[in-house]
């Protein structure tokens, strides 16, 4: 093992820098010879862009895959999932099976979504089928809840209409791209409030697909009670859970930040709804994550800003475990590495999916467990020496 890992970052975040320093890694600049570069999204774009990009050498690792925007941009993600489903259908894969009404049995996890302005007319057709429905508009390239709003009337999105009078003055390219989805207006509420899940998933390789889920994910609650009432459609404190939005609310609490750990959620659901329902819920969440990754989908820049003391500790540990998996034993990276890391380094990550391990057992297991047929002893939830495999299917 020659020398220490040389690192660079263009993000002044203590949770990163403390982790690098505690490993005794050496900080260098980007013009020097580096092994590990934790890049901001802008830098990633430059490194992998056609004009300004450069090829990484065999001993260099970065924190995003070149195609990460396939997952971060909402329109690309939707396109990828739709394409993935069609591909499976063409192959005749049992995963793409549909029910009598044409709904996917196992891959129905995205609500009806259209691209605007491109699919405007298709959207209008769908909208007219159920005119009392609510839809949610999200800008393709933004994060942290910016620019999101709800509509229940066509007039509210006149701007995106292809035939609108405004389009003769405004060219297509300056009309910002949005996705519009059917709004799920009956979300699960706890304490009468809407919440979402923030889960951390690490993808170490795509081929074969190896991904890990951090056990300590969390839920983010709205500070205001949920109501589907149309008079509150533009109250973002009711509908959007992003901390960036909620922390401006009157009732935002800086001690707990309106967050719950996923294990709290699990305890609450098991206590009030029962174990089977809860286990199935988490199974399905994991399924969605793996399928999305397979369709190529991941968010580019999770916030590394910490909003509470607990948050800071969580993110420090998260980065710590991430680095342990990505750069095992602090060795200089080598692109020929292909082994699965030993279970001791996982820390608070659990194996979400390991394609190599899965293929060893035969891929048809995947479907058998999805349709609830009886499984052999190996496929049930394993508990060997402290490591729990998350999925009941492979």
């Amino acid at each position, binding site marked *: 093992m020659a020398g220490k890992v040389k690192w660079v970052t263009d993000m002044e975040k203590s949770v990163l820098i403390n982790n690098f320093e505690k490993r005794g890694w050496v900080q260098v600049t980007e013009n020097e010879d580096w092994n590990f570069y934790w890049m901001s999204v802008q830098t990633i774009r430059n490194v992998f862009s056609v004009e300004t990009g450069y090829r990484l050498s065999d001993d260099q690792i970065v924190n995003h895959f070149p195609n990460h925007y396939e997952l971060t941009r909402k329109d690309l993600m939707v396109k990828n999932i739709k394409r993935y489903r069609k591909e499976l259908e063409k192959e005749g894969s049992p995963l793409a099976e549909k029910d009598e009404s044409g709904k996917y049995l196992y891959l129905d996890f995205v609500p009806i979504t259209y691209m605007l302005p491109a699919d405007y007319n298709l959207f209008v057709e769908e909208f007219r089928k159920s005119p009392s429905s609510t839809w949610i508009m999200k800008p393709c390239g933004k994060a942290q809840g910016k620019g999101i709003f709800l509509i229940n009337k066509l007039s509210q999105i006149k701007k995106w209409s292809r035939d609108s009078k405004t389009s003769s003055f405004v060219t297509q390219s300056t009309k910002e791209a949005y996705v519009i989805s059917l709004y799920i207006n009956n979300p699960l509420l*706890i*304490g*009468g*409030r809407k919440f979402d899940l923030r889960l951390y998933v690490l993808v170490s390789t795509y081929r074969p697909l190896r991904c890990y889920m951090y056990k300590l994910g969390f839920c983010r*609650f709205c*500070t*205001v*009670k949920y109501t589907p009432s149309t008079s509150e459609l533009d109250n973002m404190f009711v509908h959007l859970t992003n901390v960036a939005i909620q922390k401006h609310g*009157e*009732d935002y*609490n800086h*001690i*707990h930040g*309106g967050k*719950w750990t996923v*294990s*709290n959620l699990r*305890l*609450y659901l*098991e*206590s*009030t709804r*029962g*174990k089977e329902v809860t286990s199935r819920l988490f199974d399905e969440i994991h399924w969605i994550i793996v399928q999305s990754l397979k369709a190529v989908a991941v968010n580019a820049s999770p916030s590394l800003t910490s909003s509470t003391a*607990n948050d800071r500790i969580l993110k420090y540990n998260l980065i710590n475990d991430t680095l342990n998996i990505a750069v095992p034993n602090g060795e200089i990276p080598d692109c020929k590495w292909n082994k699965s890391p030993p279970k001791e380094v996982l820390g608070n990550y659990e194996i979400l999916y390991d394609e190599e391990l899965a293929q060893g057992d035969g891929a048809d297991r995947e479907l058998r467990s999805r349709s609830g047929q009886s499984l052999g002893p190996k496929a049930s939830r394993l*508990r060997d*020496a*402290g490591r*729990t495999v998350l999925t009941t299917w492979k």
Partner: protein
Amino acid sequence: MLQEESDLSLIIAQIVQKLKGSNLYAQLERQAWASLQRPEIKLESLKEDIKEFFKISGWEKKLQNAVYSELSVFPLPSHPAAPPEHLKEPLVYMRKAQRPVGEQKELLNKWNEMGTDEPDLSLFRPVYAPKDFLEVLINLRNPNYENGDSLSFRTHLGLIQVPLKVKDIPELKELFVELGLTTGQLGIDDSTQVPPELFENEHVRIGQKVLTEQDSAAAQQYIRQGSPTALRAELWALILNISSHPEDILYYEQLKTNVIQHDLLVDSLIYKDVKLTASNDDYYFVFEDYLYQVLLCFSRDTSVLSHFAYNSASPPKSYIRGKLGLEEYAVFYPPNGVIPFHGFSMYVAPLCFLYHEPSKLYQIFREMYVRFFFRLHSISSHPSGIVSLCLLFETLLQTYLPQLFYHLREIGAQPLRISFKWMVRAFSGYLATDQLLLLWDRILGYNSLEILAVLAAAVFAFRAVNLMEVTSLAAAEAVLADLSTLKVMPLLQIFLFATVT
């Protein structure tokens, strides 16, 4: 518990009297009449046939559960029964507190989200906090007690100076026998390291059977080994004998109406308490609005007054203005006789993890209060009363961890000053929720709060090494400030069964 024959018949008579006034009695009567239509009921063997019918249809079980429920709060035979004061309670003063109609409508509309719009609380302070209560307990003396009496008590160096009888470890091991090293426990034997076939699966299966049988006593025995999360809500309801009949829901709705229509000063104390405690808690902040709903109704619930029959305390009285001292103008304030202290809302908060239907949540909390929690903030000689718990804690520490006890005393850090707040709150807000629920399982299972004192001592034992190194009360507090990572059952097991005594 039941000592002599005459005591037994007296108790039976009292329970029969009590149950005759209950809803269950009316239902049994109706069922008995209706059963006359059935072919298997014969005139010549009427009594036996109806008894048999009750057995088969599950009504006998319901009666058993009700009797069992009465027994668990039955006062010790020598305790004088207080008169049912609430029958005389006119509550006329409530009419003076009536809210204007507009305000009523507004409150009804925001019943589900009171957390976002509370009154101005800046001028309110909690009536008292646990540390004030501790000062009162420290100053308790028994005027009949002669110093020359008990040698061992003379050497008691703790804060409590009342010589009540408390158990030692051998006696505790007998009481808590199911927590022993060779018995399976949830909270220990269900961790990911242990294959579920060894204990967990079978335990869950037994739990489901207990629920199907609807047997209160069996549930109480079962839960000593902990409750599976999915069964806990039902098991607790069974042990506390809570079922949601329409009349219970109606009662709750009436209390709610009372809240909407009348304003009470104690409401502000409740708002303040919730805002200061539960709203800042990592686990319970989500349920803020439920807490208001439960506590505001609770303070108006006069049926709570009935627990004063076995509580040696009395409900606080107030007098209509100008009529001080005249009994016919005395009223109970608040109507339920309970003044909430700082941290009171934490008794309700963990229950929100189990029950999300307001009237059920309310009933469970009320029953938990009149069976257990009231003992934690009223003065009595009961073994589960806070005075006994404090003494038990101090005695355990002084007897089995003498070095630690003396050291802490030397540096001015009497252990009770730190552990008191844990016990008064039954550890709510100090332990992680899943651990707290495992602890409360055992409170229900053993029908005793002594386990709180044992746990408090076990925590000190666990952190003894660090505590021996501190040199001030503040430093000792710091060592014991964060209990959120503790695993309750291993601590208890080691302290009771694996420590050399």
